């Protein structure tokens, strides 16, 4: 077997508390399918047959009941971990180390993309890389987010990614938070790769191909808890460290042991320097190929640890971990899905105006004289007459009474919007009730700040 897929679905969704306080992030509906369905669909399309899903018990329960998850034909091996435990992604990998028999492809549950996965995996295969990851040019989110005052980005920490001239080899990775005095690059890197492109506007897709030796290394090094935060920068740094260019003596000693026992002799040292077998070494010596030119060193500068990145410039790639991303993903979900926009079991009256980019879920009831444009309506939702819904995301089981005007809102499951309500850029939490004739602009409701809107117009502003 070549690759084993691991889906990390235990994340909390800490950056969008309003949406996730009731529904765990992996089960949030995007285009009327649970969020974790999208990466699973990607893996299925590409040809995987089994996926190890690391998630919480709550999500597992919801997964078993959700009909959309039954569409997934792959065999899902669900591993449950504690919710409250402070388990990072690397800790989770360590937890399932026994199940990992070959190289592993780690995907995050909030990734929605249409990338040609073979581009990432081909880098991993062709260069015998230790790490291959996917990144994408960040797109600005154009939609107004409910509750945000203007288009401000709350002090986001930028990621600095350095790649070589071909744009494939990953040379440098650091987050702004870690760089206090400024960006410093070691001389050894500059000597080997005099031309480096440093990019900041990239989104990490959290899709990693890792060698099995890395998982074994994690098992020995319990201090690393997050893949993105700690393991990756470590690996990128280790590419140029002097000890990874393994001295021959180590090779001879280890040659006696089986070739599969990479990286287990030294507990803290990373022996991911996979000693290439002697034949591979011979082949490389005889081959007239070099990945760089201008200096006297052989291909890859003799380094055994190599990290590669595939940067997408076209196509969709979203990580749904903020509200803005969630809204954007819903907008574009209809492009990704091959199913018809309107579910066959939905009952839609003829005098309803429905725009082409809207998605209507199963068993919906949409009455006359409604207008639904650029919106996603979840399953079992009832929309009464004379309702205008634009640019909104309406989740499952919502009831919208007559005469409502909903613009740019996110309405979570089981909410009830009273008659004649006028909501603009609001986020209505789970099971909330908006009273009739209420008006609200840029408002969030959740269990934390209960709200009742009173009739005739009171415009309220708030977080």
């Amino acid at each position: 077997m070549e690759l084993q897929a691991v889906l990390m679905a235990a994340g909390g969704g800490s950056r969008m508390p309003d949406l996730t306080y009731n529904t765990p992030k992996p089960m949030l509906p995007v285009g009327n399918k649970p969020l974790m369905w999208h990466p699973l669909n990607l893996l299925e399309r590409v040809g995987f047959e089994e996926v190890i899903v690391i998630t919480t018990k709550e999500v597992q329960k919801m997964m078993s009941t959700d009909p959309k998850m039954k569409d997934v034909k792959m065999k899902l091996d669900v591993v449950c971990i504690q919710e409250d435990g402070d388990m990072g992604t690397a800790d989770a990998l360590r937890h399932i180390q026994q199940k990992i028999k070959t190289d592993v492809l780690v995907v995050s549950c909030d990734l929605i993309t249409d990338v040609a996965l073979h581009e990432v995996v081909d880098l991993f295969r062709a260069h015998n890389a230790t790490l291959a990851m996917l990144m994408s040019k960040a797109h600005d989110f154009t939609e107004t987010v409910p509750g945000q005052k203007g288009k401000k980005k709350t002090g986001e920490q930028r990621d600095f990614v350095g790649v070589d001239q071909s744009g494939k080899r990953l040379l440098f990775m650091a987050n702004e938070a870690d760089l206090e005095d400024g960006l410093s690059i070691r001389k050894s890197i500059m000597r080997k790769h005099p031309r480096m492109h440093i990019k900041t506007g990239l989104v990490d897709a959290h899709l990693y191909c890792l060698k099995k030796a890395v998982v074994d290394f994690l098992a020995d090094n319990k201090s690393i808890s997050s893949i993105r935060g700690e393991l990756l920068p470590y690996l990128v740094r280790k590419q140029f460290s002097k000890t990874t260019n393994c001295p021959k003596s180590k090779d001879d000693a280890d040659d006696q042991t089986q070739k599969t026992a990479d990286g287990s002799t030294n507990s803290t040292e990373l022996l991911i320097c996979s000693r290439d077998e002697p034949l591979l070494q011979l082949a490389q010596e005889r081959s007239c190929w070099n990945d760089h030119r201008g200096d006297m060193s052989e291909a890859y500068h003799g380094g055994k640890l190599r990290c590669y990145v595939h940067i997408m410039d076209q196509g969709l790639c979203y990580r749904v971990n903020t509200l803005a991303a969630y809204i954007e993903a819903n907008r574009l979900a209809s492009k990704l899905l091959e199913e018809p926009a309107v579910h066959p079991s939905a009952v839609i009256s003829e005098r309803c105006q429905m725009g082409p980019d809207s998605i209507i879920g199963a068993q919906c009831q949409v009455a006359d004289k409604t207008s639904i444009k650029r919106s996603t309506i979840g399953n079992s939702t009832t929309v009464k007459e004379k309702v205008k819904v634009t640019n909104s995301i309406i989740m499952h089981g919502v009831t919208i009474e007559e005469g409502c005007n909903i613009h740019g809102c996110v309405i979570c499951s089981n909410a009830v919007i009273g008659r004649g309500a006028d909501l603009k850029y609001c986020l209505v939490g789970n099971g909330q009730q908006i009273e009739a004739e209420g008006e609200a602009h840029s408002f969030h409701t959740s269990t934390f700040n209960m709200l009742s809107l009173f009739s005739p117009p009171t415009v309220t502003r708030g977080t």
Partner: protein
Amino acid sequence: MAESGVTDGLCNTDDIERSKTEGKELTKEEKQRLRKEKKQQKKNKEKNDEKTSHEGEKKKNKKKKEEQPAGSASQPPAQPSPKAVPAPAPPPPAAAAVPVPASEAPAPADKPAKSKADLKAERRARQEAERASKGKKGDVGQPAPTGKLKAPPSELQPVVKRLPEHVQVDNPEVVKKLAKKLERQQTPGCNAAENVKIPLRSDYGYKVSLFSHLHQYSRKAPLTQQLGIPSTVIHPAIVRLGLQYSQGIVAGSNARSVALLHAFQQVIRDYTTPPNEELSRDLVNKLKPYISFLNQCRPLSASMGNAIKYIKKEISNIPSQCKEEEAKIKLLNCIERYINEKIVLAAKAIAKYSIEKISDGDVILVYGCSSLVNHILCEAFEKKRKFRVIVVDSRPRLEGREALRRLVQKGISCTYVLISAVSYILPEVSKVFLGAHALLANGYVMSRVGTSQIALVAKAFNVPVLVCCETYKFCERVQTDSFVSNELDDPDDLIVTRKGKTQLEHWQKVPSLGLLNLVYDVTPPDFVDLVITDLGMIPCTSVPVVLRVKNVDQ
């Protein structure tokens, strides 16, 4: 006759004459009779030839089965005569043979009395018999009988071999056949339910008409696009190898062979014999789709072909009572030995011979990056020979830079020129060392494109040209030009950006423009003075001898 001559001896001359004439007459008569019979037989043969060729060419598709029993019913009595008629009798089974030759037997006998209807009936009977024989034997038999019965031009047919598929890309039927062959080569594996086939890589871009019979692929469209991840149909080591070939990470004849054998070692290690199967047969079948896959990624080289033949032979020679573990270990050792003998030790032997040819003060010209020539020069330098090297390079591969790096790293003083400057620099050169991709059976050297140019110019300047080649690269193919069998590389490699401008960026839109990126060319033996192999230093024309000796050994 003598007695009649004696008894008639009284009347001398008349009798003698009479006896002579009588004798002559008698003999004449007999002779005439014999002659007539022979003529008739010949005529019948020709007539039959015409008839069968007639049928063979024109009436192949008619089906008239009713005629056959009628024909065969009338044929049995005349069986002895078929011995005179060649070909159809021996190969096909007797039942089919009987109507055919038998139908020809009544023909000579009834020749004068035959009517048109009879002729037609016989013709149809012969058709049926031929079709039956064709159906039973299949393609192989067909050229043989029809070839021998047909008129002279088609006699050449059995001698003409079928062209390999990779040089018939412009023939749509052949391409379809190849696609079907790849489909049939699905590995059943453990999931018999999924029938994943080895995908067919599609050609890219406009091909220059002289080379339209060859494949031309784009590096940006790898074959892995059409395969699933993770690859279960094809062993991951083979997928990795295919990718490395198509991206040029493993390039050079020796490197490709070593990498191939290494991947096969991994395949063998991971192999388990399915129940009711024998390792010697099943493993060979398992390797076939892998080889097709690698061929699609990049056409196989002659050295790879020889290595594959060796492996297949070793696998089929495994005795059936051998246990799986033992067999696997044996195969792995075979591979190690092959690489050690044919590549590593051969390089050492060639270096030893070549060092004798390098004298102090030499100026040696090398072309491109040949692992063997680099090895030789490095060894010679270590043996303290004083020489300098001129590295000639050519676009688009610019492999000479890599050769330059390796030589300079050792400490050899080098000059670097492009191939356009070769005639300016040759007056300084004392020897030319060239590497080879393959040595063909007629003494031609197949090597990187540009090699024949260098050999030609060197010949014009009377500079000795020495080709270094291991014996495992000797190939039984015969080629006298570089068109018939070659490799076309990605045409986009020829596009270069200078000062921000890329002139050829939209070359596909210009209908009359084609980009040709050839990889190999052949050098005639007249330009090569010596071939240095691990068996010694031989002239170019001795290649068939070496091949013959090799075959005898095996």
